[in-house]
Each structure stands twice: as C-alpha cells, then as structure tokens.
C-alpha cells in the first residue's frame, strides 16, 4: 500500500521532470557550459605544459637564479625542433608565452626555424644563445616557466592592476599604469548614476501613464515604447545631433542669447553625454516594470489615506511608495545590470572619459585574442554584479520584485 502510494507520487514528479528536461538541457548547453568554459580560461591554461612537458619539468627544478641547467636548454631545443613541423602548435605556444613577455613570439619562432635548419652546434646552451641572445636572459626562462603553469592567477592579477614583484609578493601597479581597476570603478559608478537618473525620470512617467484614462495611457505607453523599438545606434546618433556644439540645443541657447556663440556648452564627448544617452536608452526598462506595478495599486488606497487625515506627501510616502517597491526593485536591477555591460553608447558619445570596462573585454576577445584576460575581467565583473545582487535582494527582497 505504501509502495503504491509512493509510486503514485513519483510518477507525476517524473512527468514534471520530463517536461522541464528540454529547458534544462537548453540552459546547460547554451549557458552553463559556455560560461563555465569561459571562466575556466581565466585560470586554466594547459597548452604550454602539454606541448613543452620536458622543458617545463626541467624548469621546475631551476631555482630562478642565473640561467637554468644544460638539461633545460637541451629539452627546450628538442621540443622546439619537434614543434617546427607543427605550425599551429608552435603558434599556440609562442602566443601564450608572448602574453607573459612581449617579444617571445618572435624569439621562439626564429629559434624553431633555425634549429630545424642547422641543428646542434656545440652545447645546446651555446646553440640557443647563438641563435638569439634572449636565451641568455633569466627573464626569458622565467616567462616560459610562468606560462607553463597549468593553473595561474596571472590574468586575475593583470585584471586587477596588480603585479608580481621580482622578489615575490604582489603589489599594485603605479597609479599612471592602472587600466582596468579605474575603468571598473567608473563602470560601477556610471551604472549606479544612470540607474538613479532612470528612477528619478521614470517614476513620474510611469505614474502618469498608470493614472491616465486608458486611451491616453495607451498613447503615453506607446511614446515610451517607440524609442525602445528604434535601433540603439539611431538613438545615440540623435543625441549627438542634439547635444553637440553646433547642435540643436546649443543653437537654440545661442539664438536666445543665453550662451555666447564662442562659449557653446560642451554636452557631449564627456560624462554628460554618457549619462544623457545611456539614461535615455535604458529608460523603458525602468518605466515598464514600474507601470505594471502601479497599475495594480487601487486608486482607493491614496484616497483612503487622505481621508484618514494624511497630507498628500505623507500618503505618498507611507501608502503609495511602499507598494511600488517591487517595481522599483525590478526596474533598478534591470537598468543597473544592462548599464554595466554597455559599451557602444559610451564609446560613441563618451569621448575620452566615457569608456567603460566592456570595451576592454571586447578588445581582448576580438583583437588581442587574450581570452584569458578577457575571461578574468568578465569573471570579476560577474562576481561584482552577483555580490551587489545579493546585497540588493537582501535589502529589497527578491520575492517581492516584479518584472512587469
């Protein structure tokens, strides 16, 4: 009897699992696996250790003072000679070592080519240093050993603008050499600022739409949605036309005599431009969740509060505002997370100071092919967003959020 009961409870559960299975498989294949691989690339880099196993083994025994032993030179020469016939492998390995120390790509390619032609001349040490004087420098060998470590935190150090001191220990880079940490802080601050601006502008708009009679509400909603359907680049370019020095707004101010012709306002290619354009682009993501929440609040609540003696402001603060919190929470989260990943808009209107961290990630994925560093930067961003999200959901309560 018990078994039958148990079975009858399991069958629907299995059925439900079967229904979810396609989605689960889809999410795993299209999201979890790529994300996992990406994050893995930031710390795991087996290529050099796989292709140059003997050299790396020899170098592990080397103290790091002076030059490594003749055995290490011999292993390097043997493995490079073997690699000479396998161009893609040689390319992969020299690229990986070049990322630890610039110039190594050339040294390795040259050496492999010459070794294939001439072979050994005297000791292996003499042979290699004869081909390229870089083999006489400990830094070269340190770079190879470093690149040969399967697990490395190098990309994370790089992404956090830290560097390994020669005597060991880790220290921040000089202030004028830092690239990524200032950009990350800037990205977080700009995203936060844009979120607040969107909230300040979007809240009254959403309220107006929700409070309007249905016919007018629909038109207002359409006004919010039309820009949402317009291409991002078109909207960004429209802001350039409006905000530039010879643009519509400056022209208007000059014709009114409010601004002298030679003192036109600089409203674009700086932080102002970034804030204006990003706020406009992201505004619908704030308005829509707010509107959906506000629409469900009965008008009678405010009326009741006022009839019970609350001043309008007090009624708003204590009755209306708390009921819209789920919308505020959802809208802010959407805008903030979208803003963190933005880069086309800031790149076009932000000028010198408008660049955000995503453009560096794009550079390392697309152009420099340094996927390890790109993965490290992305991971740091992901962790930062997750931490902020947890703090945020603790404060607001995720179960109360409504996305519309």
């Amino acid at each position, binding site marked *: 009897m018990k078994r039958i009961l148990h079975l009858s409870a399991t069958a629907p559960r299995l059925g439900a699992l079967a229904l979810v299975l396609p989605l689960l498989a889809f999410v795993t294949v299209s999201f979890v696996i790529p994300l996992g691989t990406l994050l893995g690339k930031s710390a795991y880099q087996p290529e050099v250790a796989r292709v140059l196993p003997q050299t790396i083994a020899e170098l592990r025994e080397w103290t790091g003072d002076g030059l490594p032993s003749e055995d290490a030179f011999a292993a390097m020469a043997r493995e490079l000679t073997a690699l000479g016939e396998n161009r893609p492998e040689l390319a992969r390995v020299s*690229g990986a070592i070049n990322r630890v120390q*610039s110039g190594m790509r050339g040294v390795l390619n040259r050496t492999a080519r010459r070794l294939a032609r001439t072979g050994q001349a005297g000791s292996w040490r003499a042979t290699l240093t004869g081909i390229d004087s870089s083999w006489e420098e400990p830094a070269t060998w340190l770079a190879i050993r470093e690149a040969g470590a399967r697990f490395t935190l190098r990309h994370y150090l790089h992404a956090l603008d830290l560097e390994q001191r020669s005597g060991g220990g880790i220290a921040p880079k000089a202030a004028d050499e830092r690239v990524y940490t200032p950009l990350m802080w*800037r990205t977080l601050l700009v995203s936060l600022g844009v979120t607040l601006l969107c909230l300040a502008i979007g809240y009254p708009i959403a309220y107006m739409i929700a409070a309007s009679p249905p016919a007018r509400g629909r038109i207002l909603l359409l006004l919010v949605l039309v820009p949402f359907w317009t291409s991002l680049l078109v909207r960004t370019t429209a802001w350039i036309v409006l905000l530039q*020095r*010879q643009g519509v707004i400056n022209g208007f101010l000059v014709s009114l005599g409010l601004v002298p012709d030679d003192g036109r306002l600089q409203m674009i290619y700086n932080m102002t431009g970034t804030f204006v354009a990003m706020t406009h682009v992201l505004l619908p993501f704030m308005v829509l969740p707010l509107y959906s929440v506000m629409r469900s609040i009965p008008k009678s609540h405010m009326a009741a509060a006022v009839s019970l003696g609350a001043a309008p402001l007090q009624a708003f603060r204590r009755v209306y505002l708390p009921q819209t919190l789920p919308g505020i929470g959802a809208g802010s989260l959407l805008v903030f997370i979208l803003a963190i990943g933005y880069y086309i808009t800031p790149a*076009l209107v932000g*000028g010198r100071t408008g660049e955000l961290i995503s453009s*560096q990630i794009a550079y390392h994925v697309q152009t420099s*092919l340094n996927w390890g560093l790109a993965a490290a930067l992305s991971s740091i961003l992901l962790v930062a967003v997750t931490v902020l999200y947890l703090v945020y959901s603790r404060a607001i309560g995720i179960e109360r959020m409504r996305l519309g």
Partner: protein
Amino acid sequence: MSNGFSGRFRGMAPAMRGFCLFVVCLAPAGVALAEAITVVSWGGSYARACQQAYHESFTAETGIEILLEDYNGGLAQIRAQVDAGAVHWDVVDLEMPDGWLACQEGLIELLEVTELPAGVNGEAPEDDYPGEYVTECGSGVTFYSTVFAYNSNYLTGPPPQTVADFFDLEKFPGRRGMRRSPFVNLEFALLADGVAPDRIYSVLATSEGVDRAFAKLDTIKDQVVWWEAGAQPPQLLADGEVIMSTAYNGRIFNAQVLENQPFVIVWDGQALDSGFLAIVAGTPRYEAARQFVQFANRPESIANISKYISYGPVRRSPRALVDSHLATGVKMQPHMPTSPENLTRAVRLDWRWWSENRDDIYERFSAWLAR
C-alpha cells in the same frame, strides 16, 4: 564505396532503406550543382566595390558561387571556428595586424608567393608587390590610408599643409578629431615632432621614442574629440564639431564626390595600410578558396576596385590602370593613396612592429586616455 554503403543498410526496414537511398542519391547531385565558398569582408561600400570589381567575374569564370558575409574585424570568430574544427568561413579580408597575428597563431593557411598571378606585363609576383606586402602570411590587395582632412567652409584662413599643423594649436586653434586607438596616432605624433617618415619605427623601437610620441599627443589631448567608427569623422567635419580630423581617405572621398562636401584631404604623412585575403586554416573548401584568392590578386581585379572606391592597388603594375570613378566619372588618380604626388611623405604602417607591441601600447594608451 556505394557497395559498402548499401550493404550497411541491408538490415533496415524497406521504407527506411528507400529513404536512405533517396538521401544518398540526392546529396552528391546537390554538391555538384553549385560549389560555394563563404567570403567574409567589411560590408558597406567596400564589400560592394569588391563584389562588382571581381566576385561576379570570378563566379562567371569558375562556376564557384560566393556567399558574402560581413564582419567587423578581429579574429575571435576565426579562432573559435579553427579551435572547434568546424570552419565555415573560407576566405576572410583581414587588416594587416590581424592578418599577421592570425598567421602567427596558425589560424590561416600559408601562401605560396610564387603561385600568385603575374603582373600586367608579366612581372614576377615577388617583384610586383612592395616587399613587406607579400609574405607567406598573405599578400596586400588594396592600400587605404589614414589622412587628416578639414572642412574648407569652417577653416577659411591659410590652410594646414603638414602633420605638424595638425598639432599646432596656435596657428590652428580649435578641436581635432582622432581615432580612439594608439594606431596611426603615435606615428602622426612623431611626424609632427620632426621625425622623418622612414625613421618612425626605429624611433618607436625604444621606450624613449614611445614616450616622445605620447608627450606630443599630450600637447593636444584637451582639444581632441575621439572617434570610434569610420563614419564619424566626416560627420564631425560636416557639423563643424572639429576643425580637422584624421579619417579614412575613402570616407572623405565619398563625402567629397557623392555628397559634395567641401572637404580637403592633407596627404602629408598619410598612413598607408593594407589588408589581405586569407584562407582560414583547415577549411574543407581549400581548393576553391585558393582559386578565389588567386583571382582577387590578378592585376585587373585589383585595378577594377578603384572604379568604385578610392583604394589603390598594392601591386605596382596595376596602378597605371586606375582610371575614373564609375558612378561620377571623377578621375581617380589624384584621390588615390598610391598616386606618386600623394606618396611623397607617406608612412607605411609597420604591422610587424604593431603585432609585437600592440597589447602593451594599447594598454598604455588606455591608461593615458583615462588620466
């Protein structure tokens, strides 16, 4: 082959067997009908020019269809395809630094220089290309160039004539447009600082040289509007947002002849750059791709491009074939980066130097820009 095939399917239900036979019969017929290769290029007026200049005649001659795709530069997609062993791009139009890096990373097939088509008068290919533009990594097809230009409606006094004028805030007060990238800007800065065009990279080879370039850029940093996309500088000039701007010569040419903008190009210090057609490593359609690259390197294919866009031949012999712009009838010779009068103080971008140094320089540039 076909015996073994049908043998393997003997145990199947008749209906299934019929279906398999159907598929087996159809598949080779489909392949034989049209062989096609995927060619990936930059889109816009450039890809259209190439299409009209030689893609169509290639298909007519060989029967190989061309599927044209657009991309925005970079090597990420190629690397992903090669790593996964699933290559569906066959030929890609690469910028020199990308091409050089792709070659070093083993992402593209090597080129047999001697197999390239001969020049107009039968010149051997290795003599017809300027030396550094034909290597085992690839051969340059067209030159395009980064120049600086101004709008003669807004800049009415004595016109700027040299790169030094671009950096001269006293003679030419006002804001300048520059690409948000160290590329070309370092070369411009050193030229303006008095370095001769052929000495640029020996100066940049030392860290003092790089410091010197950044110091020169410092002098105009506050007056620069940084552009990102090639379409921006003509717009900045047309709107009077900047008094002069670096730009791609093809974009300025289009604005001049198609939109009648009063733009003037200053050819002094023009930075010549080129790209090449590369075959993605491990493509299953290697032979067709190779035929395409050979065809594209024919002198008449290259010269034809200049009927549609102001990019000049890298090979020397087809340069004389350059005639006029098909749509407007404008004589192309004065608008070509490769015309002798435009080449007097040209800088040839050294992609070997850039591929060795670009990550370090790029990082330094980003840090410099943010300060």
